[in-house]
């Protein structure tokens, strides 16, 4: 018998979008979230509006989480993880463990469901792997995720060493993306867009700041991306097509040195910055292999879940669906659409059964 219940693994924007779409169609949904709360990465990010909305969609993610957390047809199981699974499409059994509140004991339970949507999202690339950038060693080298969190929490932009406003800021693109040497031979899609929007935000909050973006290629996203790039250039944000290979720190200084190529003269120049933001890419979650084994679904060469050609929401195992960045890098907008698209695939499968 077909169950009208669906389990969604991962409570980020993709999972929640799938969940909301499914409940709208009449399903009951269980969201299995490892963390203590819903939302995933998107809800830790900062709004990047200047006087105008930058269309970063962080606020949309916030609203979505709020909606899902109170939804009568969505059961949110925070602090829970998948243990094993069995059955056939339309009639699965999913065994999960959940941290049990006060005594912090794990409690196991079994969900009877018709379909499973994997929406475990991504991990920001661990910048410590790029030793030459000194992340973790130099306080004023931070990742874009750190930067977003700090802006959201403090509502102001400051450098970690002394909390004052930074003067010279740079963004390093493609940290953990398009880099075969560390096994990341793919583009993370989202970093250019967020770096441009963040740099605009910094420039509008600290107009006297000097901002440089070191990049390989600018990757566009969405409508009017060219306008965004041009508006950055108009504000005086510099674009340098060259990724410095190393960051040199000084003792007792807020500043760091970077060698790079001047695109106009072809000379190597030295530059100093007091805030270096590493635009880290998206890496697969650390438990993807476990999930892949459990659900017998394929991973691609970069360890993202492999979607089928006719629909990237479909995995190679019937009844197991994919949504969001666990299938490959996606921004918030694309993740939400992908989540809802997954809901459509679930409906299709359960009808055919």
């Amino acid at each position, binding site marked *: 018998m077909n169950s009208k219940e669906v389990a969604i693994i991962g409570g980020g924007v993709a999972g929640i979008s799938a969940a909301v*779409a499914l409940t*709208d*169609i009449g399903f009951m949904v269980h969201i299995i979230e490892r963390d203590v709360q819903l939302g995933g990465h998107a809800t830790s990010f900062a709004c990047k509006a200047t006087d105008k*909305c930058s*269309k970063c*969609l962080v*606020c*949309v993610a916030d*609203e979505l989480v*709020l*909606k899902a*957390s*109170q939804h*009568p047809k969505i059961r949110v199981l925070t602090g829970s993880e998948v243990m094993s699974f069995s059955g056939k499409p339309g009639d699965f059994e999913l065994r999960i463990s959940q941290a049990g509140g006060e005594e912090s004991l794990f409690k196991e339970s079994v969900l009877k469901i018709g379909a499973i949507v994997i929406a475990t999202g991504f991990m920001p690339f661990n910048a410590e792997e790029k030793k030459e950038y000194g992340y973790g060693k130099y306080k004023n080298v931070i990742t874009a995720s750190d930067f977003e969190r700090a802006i959201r929490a403090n509502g102001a932009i400051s450098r970690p060493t002394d909390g004052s406003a930074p003067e010279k800021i740079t963004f390093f693109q493609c940290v953990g993306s*398009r880099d*075969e040497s560390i096994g990341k*031979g*793919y*583009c993370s*899609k989202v970093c*250019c867009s967020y770096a441009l929007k963040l740099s605009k935000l910094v420039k509008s909050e600290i107009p006297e700041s000097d901002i440089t973006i070191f990049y*390989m*290629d*600018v*990757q*566009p*996203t*969405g*409508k*009017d*991306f*060219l306008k965004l790039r041009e508006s950055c250039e108009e504000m005086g944000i510099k674009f340098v*097509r060259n990724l410095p290979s190393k960051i040199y720190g000084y003792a007792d200084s807020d500043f760091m040195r970077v060698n790079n*190529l001047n*695109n*106009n*003269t*072809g000379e190597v120049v030295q530059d100093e910055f007091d805030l270096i933001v590493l635009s880290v890419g998206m890496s697969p979650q650390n438990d993807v292999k476990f999930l892949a084994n459990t659900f017998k679904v394929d991973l691609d060469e970069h360890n993202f879940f492999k*979607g089928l*050609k*006719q*629909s*990237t*929401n479909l995995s190679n195992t019937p009844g197991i669906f994919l949504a969001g960045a666990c299938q*490959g*890098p996606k921004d918030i*907008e*694309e993740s*939400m*659409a*992908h*989540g*809802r*698209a997954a*809901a*459509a*695939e679930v*409906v*299709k499968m359960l*009808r055919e059964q």
Partner: protein
Amino acid sequence: MKREVSKIGIFIYDCESKLKNVLSISEVCSKLEGLGFVCFESPASHFNEAMSDFEKYLKDNEMLKVVIAGCDSRSKEQIFKNSLKKVGLSPYWVNFVNLNEAIGYKEKKKATEKAINLVTQAAKWIEMQEIIGTQKVLLNQKVLVLGGGIAGIETALTLTEGGLDVILIEETSHLGGGAVAVENLKGLVKSKIEALVNEKKVRVINSSHLVDLDGHVGRFTARVEGEQKLIFEVGAVVVATGNELILPIQELDESSGSLAIGQKDLENRLSLSKDVPQRVCFLIDLVDEDLKISTQVLLKQALAVKEKFGSDVICLCRDLKVSFDGGEKLYEKAQEAGVLFFKYTKKPKIAFSDEIVKTSLINEDYPHEKLVFESDLLVVNEKIMPGRGSNALAESLSVDLDSKGFFQSDNVKLLPTFSSRRGIFFVGGCRLPQNINETLSEARATAAEIFSFLSKEEIELDLTSAKIDSDKCILCLTCIRTCPHRAIVVDQEEETAKVIPLACQSCGICVSECPVVAIELPLYTNAQIIGQLNDVVGEAG
């Protein structure tokens, strides 16, 4: 002060004893009791306990309306509302107070005063809240899809999975749209077309176009013309009319002749296995440099030319836009095959002479060096333009186009495929040129959205939409012109403006624009708002 307030209950709870330390809840309660309200102070110290307390409270007391004061923000509102629904109370007859607001006050006395003020305000607001009626609305469960390209086909197929009937209108004589011409998509497109043609719930009408659309979400009337003149009643409309490719003639020299072709021409040549010359130069980003599709095509074609004909292949672009699935891999593969890539910031110069194209640009790695390439064929990316009929179509749908003429989807708070009118959607290349996976994904997402709200033939709608008092309405048309969702129409018989509840999104813009105060938003009446001004801005209590 005597008022009929005994049916309004005030439910106050503390969370983790946060409030007790800064204000006196019992004082708040006694003050409100003094004003004639029934007040209940929950001893619960945790939200979950407070919830069960609240449910018990609802059972024990015959209340009509409730004010819930605590220190949870909006994150718990829906949960309380669900409880109210369970015991048969209106979820609209409740108001919430976030007492955290009072916590910031330094003195206990002031904090308590502020709390009293906040709760009184909320009680006054809900006291004035009138009943929210409901209305049964019939929905037409058919969907009109405009455009038989891959976006339209995928939307139509997915809609049928949700149990809806689809009418698909295609302007040309065949299905498939632009994707049919793309070599590696042919198989996919063919199988989707087959599935569509075999689907009984879909009626495909070729060589036709929409001429007029009347009505509103749930009940549109569409006039379609082609070989026949047809009229359909549908519940939603999906625009998937795609886009058009145009060779950027003005960017090229007139003397280019057959030396310069577009990516689409090359695609045709490749699929017909026609010869490609020995030296090929790809030059992209001359136009539409913010689209990644041209890079995607470039990589595939450069590799194909290299592998099939062993030509010397040079690619010039502003940025190598590899932000699509497998993009970087494809780039690496092309490089390994011997395709050369050069990036430019300043647009390269092109010169045509004696069957040879000369392209020159500055080497960005060594800016003093000028690179000059001679080739036998120049391949450029086409400019992607909105479909020819977009303007007329936008007019008949009463929706907007963006500055480039693509269908607008300007509401960041909704799916990008939503239009400003409920029930009308834009999918695929007609709103933003994109690649196949993105198109398929948004087509399915949109279909899921549509069948969730068209899944029933009849729905009961809570009338929280704006209400027009037909006695006061002078038909000045201001509301009709200012409604962002085109949810207000003229009721010719009654001689008044009329809100379509299903299309209204309860923003209240019409209320604030109406010059004769004829419109009210039931959950935010004028009296409620003005009532808040009088009390609190004056002295507290």
